[in-house]
């Protein structure tokens, strides 16, 4: 399958393409019935390659959070969190719609597709 990559794009570009279409997709290994993130060409650690894309539920929980201090003229403080998805994997993202220093571990969050610097991005809101 990997011998000729012509005419296809890799999982990173596929993920971005899905985001551009308004879909937050994550990969699942069929034989293991396990989800993982970030996107890869094979399941990390054991190498299974029977992968499929599944639309994420968007439900998650804050695993950790930080308030990144930034001058107001450069956009002001912003939140940066690690989110554990309901499906199991973890990802970096921002939690918005709340003061950046008020995001707490364990809070339930929901994904939406927004944009950062002109690129589609997964952003989370407190549920």
């Amino acid at each position, binding site marked *: 399958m990997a011998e000729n990559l012509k005419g296809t794009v890799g999982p990173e570009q596929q993920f971005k393409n899905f985001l551009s279409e308004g879909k937050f997709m994550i990969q699942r290994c069929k034989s293991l019935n396990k989800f993982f993130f970030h996107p890869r060409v094979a399941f990390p650690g054991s190498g299974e390659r029977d992968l499929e894309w599944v639309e994420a539920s968007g439900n998650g929980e804050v695993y950790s959070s930080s308030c990144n*201090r930034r001058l107001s003229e450069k956009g002001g403080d912003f939140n940066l969190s690690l989110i554990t998805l309901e499906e199991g994997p973890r990802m970096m993202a921002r939690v918005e719609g709340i003061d950046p220093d008020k995001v707490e571990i364990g809070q339930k969050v929901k994904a939406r597709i927004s944009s950062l610097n002109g690129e589609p991005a997964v952003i989370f809101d407190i549920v």
Partner: protein
Amino acid sequence: MDQNDINRLRGKTAVVGLAESGCGLASGWSAMEIMASAVHDALDDAGIKLKEVDGVFAATAFHSMAAMSLSEYLGVKPKFADGSQIGGSSFLSHILTAAMALDAGLINVAVVAYGSNQKSAGGFKTISEAMPYEAQYQPRMPVTAYALSAKRYMNEFGATREDLANVAVSARDWALLNPRAYTHQDGPLTINDVLSARPIVDPLGKLDCCLVTDGGAAVVMTRSDRAKDTKNTPIYLLGAAMEHHHRMISEMPDLVQTSAIESGKRAFSMSGYNPNDMSTIQLYDAFTINTLLFLEDLGFCKKGEAKELVKNNNIGPAGNLKVNTNGGGLSCVHPGMYGLFVTLEALRQLRNASGDDVGQRLDGGWIDNAKLSVAHGNGGVLSSQVTNIWGVSDTL
């Protein structure tokens, strides 16, 4: 291969020379010039001629092929070189690789080196690529990663910013005893100083973060049979091990457990000694949270208990644990990648206790009768962990 085969490296090599150069501010000096100066000084310290060097090990944030650039600059034609870049712990892994190459007979004299002019050249310097799936959120790396770990640590174990601040206060107390430390003249820190410092990435403020300085360092290694005949006290590599589990903080399996658990276990096992046998404990403290994590992960206390261990200045000069006795990355020196300075302090303490002149300290700055030191390096975002155990001859 069983553990006995791996352990055959125990005590087979030693550091016979060391030096630092340009620590603090070295305006007008390039990273290469600082690094090469350290190499020449370390060779002078060892009493070994440059032309004998046949193994070169280096990594910097300024050179994509540091070992090659350094060899060329020195005018050395190495038979073996390694420029592996795993962040600030690179040098502790270079020491393991150098020991392997020396033991295998590929080389006879190895230099391990680092140099940086990041402070005089304008600030924190990195050649790290943008991380996919993270960069678009614009984390302030590496601080954001360590803040995420600190926040999780505080949540899981009920630790506070005061607990983190204890680490910075003790580090400064050591620096006050060390004339080489960047903050030697700056006076002591209080808990309140740390808590009220400018916030960088909550929960970490400016004084939870390491210094930004210039500086270079180098060590010279040989096989132990030759080391006996050099002019200084040889310090033997008794144990060394590494492990890493992630490159990006979003991929760290557990934010409060580092792979130092694995590197430490194997390095101590190779050495034949336990954490409690260590006379000095040198940990890569890029941020205050590091010291808590590494004290736990290397086995000085149980997970979640380091906040108790660092209370009442217990890791300061008057405390029971001699941790980061130079002042650490927090208060001594931190030129971008600190690993070789962790190593230097581990070695200097042992050499001083053996009677070598490795500089002056105020009373209490040198550890009496030091026989064993652990040097622990961290790289990336709590990513690569490398542990070295050093000992004097009667620990062999």
